[in-house]
């Protein structure tokens, strides 16, 4: 690895990704776990704190109702597709969704269970009640948890392939490209 003091702002740093597939899988399961596996503890901790706190904050201000999986009309929870990449913290919703499809009682006191869908228009609509009770916070909690899921997609990519270094800025004193030297192997 290059000397730290000599590493420029845009200069790539060697990173040992170990097994990228394993790292990506661990990063999906738990934000930051893939980086911990690679020995990138600082970044792992940063991802873990940022992503999990965003997810937990959103889940909390959403009254614990904003993360659930439902795939049947009339309530298809599209938001869950974007919340799910946060990994294990969002996976209980899948379990509860499967139980709801089999008409089984939800586990863990209804933690991440989908709302009861009324069979007739005049029946009690649990989802409408959630919206009525939480109002703005239902949407806000949904946004937070979606952002957490999307941020973990970036973290998974970073675990699998390393940092996406930005292109170096053009130098002011850089001379116009001379085609005659473009293919010269001796040019650094």
């Amino acid at each position, binding site marked *: 690895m290059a000397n*730290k003091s000599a*590493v420029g*702002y845009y200069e*790539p*740093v060697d*990173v040992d990704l170990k097994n990228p597939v394993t790292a990506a899988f661990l990063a999906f399961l738990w934000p930051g776990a893939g980086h911990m596996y690679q020995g*990138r503890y*600082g*970044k792992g901790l*940063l*991802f873990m704190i*940022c*992503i999990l*706190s*965003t997810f937990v*904050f959103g889940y909390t201000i959403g009254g614990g109702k904003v993360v659930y999986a439902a795939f049947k009309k009339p309530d298809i929870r599209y938001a869950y597709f974007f919340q799910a990449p946060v990994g294990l913290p969002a996976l209980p919703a899948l379990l509860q969704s499967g139980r709801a499809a089999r008409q089984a009682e939800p586990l863990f006191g209804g933690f991440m269970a989908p709302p009861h869908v009324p069979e007739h228009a005049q029946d009690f609509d649990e989802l409408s009640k959630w919206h009525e009770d939480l109002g*703005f916070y239902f949407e*806000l909690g949904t*946004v*937070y948890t979606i*952002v*957490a899921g999307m*941020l973990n997609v*970036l*973290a998974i*990519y*970073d675990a699998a392939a*390393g*940092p*996406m*270094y*930005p292109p170096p800025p053009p130098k002011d004193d850089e001379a116009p490209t001379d085609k005659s030297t473009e293919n010269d192997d001796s040019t650094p």
Partner: protein
Amino acid sequence: MTSWLLPLAEINRLWYAVPLIVSISLVYGATRHELWTPILDHALRFALWIVVFMSIFFVVLFLVSWWL
């Protein structure tokens, strides 16, 4: 409260954007660099960019809300 002051009452909700901006900018910065100094530098610049971008939209929507 006069109707034109109503948008001001909504300003406190903007505080909910702060944790998101911090989180997004730090994670984004960390996916672009490996060392702490460039990560934090990138995160700070990205957070400022988000704030400026949101502020421009806020002002535009605030002004538009006067005529609606």
